[in-house]
């Protein structure tokens, strides 16, 4: 049975959310690390989802 959800994309989304959740705890001069990580994981999640979709697309 084929999976409907790309678990890797979900994992990357969770990592992006974690990076954002930790921002208030991070000292102001290093907050750019959290923002960069969040954006990077978001991009990876979208790329992973696109890859998953192209692999699981039904061919006529």
């Amino acid at each position, binding site marked *: 049975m084929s999976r409907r959800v790309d678990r890797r994309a979900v*994992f990357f989304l969770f990592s992006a959310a974690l*990076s954002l959740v930790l921002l208030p705890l991070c000292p102001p001069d*290093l907050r750019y690390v959290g923002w960069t990580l969040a954006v*990077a994981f978001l991009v990876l999640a979208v790329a992973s989802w696109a890859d998953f979709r192209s692999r699981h697309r039904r061919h006529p």
Partner: protein
Amino acid sequence: METVALYAVVGMALVFDFVNGFHDAANSIATVVATRVLKPWQAVLWASFWNFVAFLVLPLTVANEIAKIVDPTVVSPGLIFAGLVGAIFWNVLTAYLGLPSSSSHALIGGIVGAGIAKAGVSVIDGDELRKTATFIFYSPLIGLALGFTLIITVMWIVHRFRARRRVNRTFRGLQLVSAAAFSLGHGANDAQKTMGIIAALLIGAGRLSPDALNDPDGIPLWVVLSCQTAIALGTMLGGWRIVRTMGTKLTRLQPMGGVCAESAAAATLFFATRQGIPVSTTHTITGSIVGIGSSERLSAVRWNVARRVVWAWVLTIPGAALVSAATYKIVAAL
């Protein structure tokens, strides 16, 4: 008597540094030995050498930051002793329970706990502690993102090469560079934690000016050399222990994945060291390896192990702090 106590605690801190190198040796040499790029004795010497020379390449910012985590003017041999006991106890307990904990975070938790037990919360540098706590999570996440991006990029570049053997040979050679870079990062970030503890001890004893912590070269050379020597010796001896079990514990390791994991972890350690952030080398390489594993499929990652690692991350600082606070109260009562 005070001088004897001071140098006894310095010796204890160096033993902690040695054990850190001993414990983390596997991270530096596992891939080069498993893929037979180097013979075991060569791998051990290679990693130890790069561990030792780290102070020549990377600034001592982590040492300066660690020394400030507890107000150095209240630091005493009893406080550092209690902190080290807390860290060692926590490491032994987690090793017994099979939880992969970080020696670095145990050390920070230990010193913070003893500091609070001695003089209250006001002597703790809150910004420094917050920075350390945040990067417990950020450092493996950076390793993960870099590791994943690197392996995907490398696979995309090499997939068009038909000469598989040549590609493999190239990555076997590159492993020497990535293992050296990782050992350099490990030698810098981990040895500097002990340097910071010793510097704080010397400031507390009036043997070093507090202004030394604002100077990149302020920490005495004997402290720098003894800490780098201790971690390099630990790696050398720990490496032998790992090599003995290598044949049974490690299975197929691909040179390409090894290079990407080590490079991603090394880049994370260089960044953290430059920013003066104490991070766990084990957690960083774990994040990178998860990144490499998830490039294939998520089930390639052993999630039960990852879950245990996360629990160890969360519990290490408070656990070590509690033990060292109790130890300090006992030491102070004697």
